[in-house]
């Protein structure tokens, strides 16, 4: 799915997959931090966003 999105022109760093156990709080924090950093770097997504006007 990530590959298809990337192929369509949605930046790869907007899609993340991870497996985190409920016991892995630190991993969860790290992953979320990494995701938000990467998405912030990309800026707001304008693709596949519906505009009514």
């Amino acid at each position: 799915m990530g590959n298809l999105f990337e192929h369509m022109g949605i930046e790869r760093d907007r899609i993340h997959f991870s497996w985190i156990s409920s016991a892995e709080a630190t991993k969860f924090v790290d992953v979320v931090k990494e995701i938000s950093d990467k998405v912030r770097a990309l800026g707001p997504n304008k693709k596949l966003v519906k505009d009514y006007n």
Partner: protein
Amino acid sequence: MNTCINKIRELALELLDKKEVEKVIGFANGTIPLATSPIAITSKQDIEKLVFNSTCGLNLANYLRDQKGKIAVIAKGCDTRNIVTHIVENQIKRDQLFIIGVPCNGMIDQFKIAALFNDEIIEFSEDGDTLNIKSSLKEEKLYKKDYLRENCKVCMHKNPVIYDVLAMDLVEEQTLDNPYPDVDKIEAMDSDKKWQHFQDLTKNCIRCYACKNACPLCYCPTCFVDESSPQWVGKGQNKTDVNTFHYLRAFHCAGRCTDCGACVQACPMDINVRDFTRKLNKDSFEMFGWEAGLDITKRPPLDAYSPDDPDDFIK
């Protein structure tokens, strides 16, 4: 390919005569040049209606579901791959079918041919590798090879993969170093260019759904585009909705698409909807070594788990 029609008719006649099948599903001549139409033959008098030529580009696997009794079907390489997919996905049983396999030298691209003329084509005939095409302004003799559909140009399964009888000798398969040059071209673009490519691709889409309805893979009783609760995608001509439809349609074909090209042939607006599915075919091949519809004993990759499945995308 012109000569195999006699064999097809002979086989069809025999099957109907001996009551081995209830009907034979094949192609009949259309009412306009460059058109053929799927037909079900049930009586011997209609056998002459069966034709087979380079315009039989739709996929007859699409006509096999929900039929009663035993049926015979005329099937090209790609049609047989979709028959295999149907069998694997429990849409039809192998023993309900009598497959008349037709090794295929490719189908022609009617839009590419139409583009050579400034007016409408009024006559089309085919003689071996030569296509004779006439409009009221001019006449052209074309080499079939130059006007093949894009999917036929990169086809590596011209011969039926499953059949009960062949209508002609097997043809030589081509091997390609790179079967996906079109995907590579898009992959080389940056995100914005890719996005623009697909925006331009679908700009004329009228959402008639000919692409999905011509596709043998699309057999859900209610398609996601028709669901209203929840409504997965808006129904209007909003660009986001139009593209969402195309992305999701493509993704539902992941690991199942045989690249038969019926979707492109059916599209009245000449949209190369294969640009969506081809990427998934390439990924299936590279990640799982998988080409759809080659073996009735194998489950498709997204339907099965193997410890070898690639998982480097999970962090």
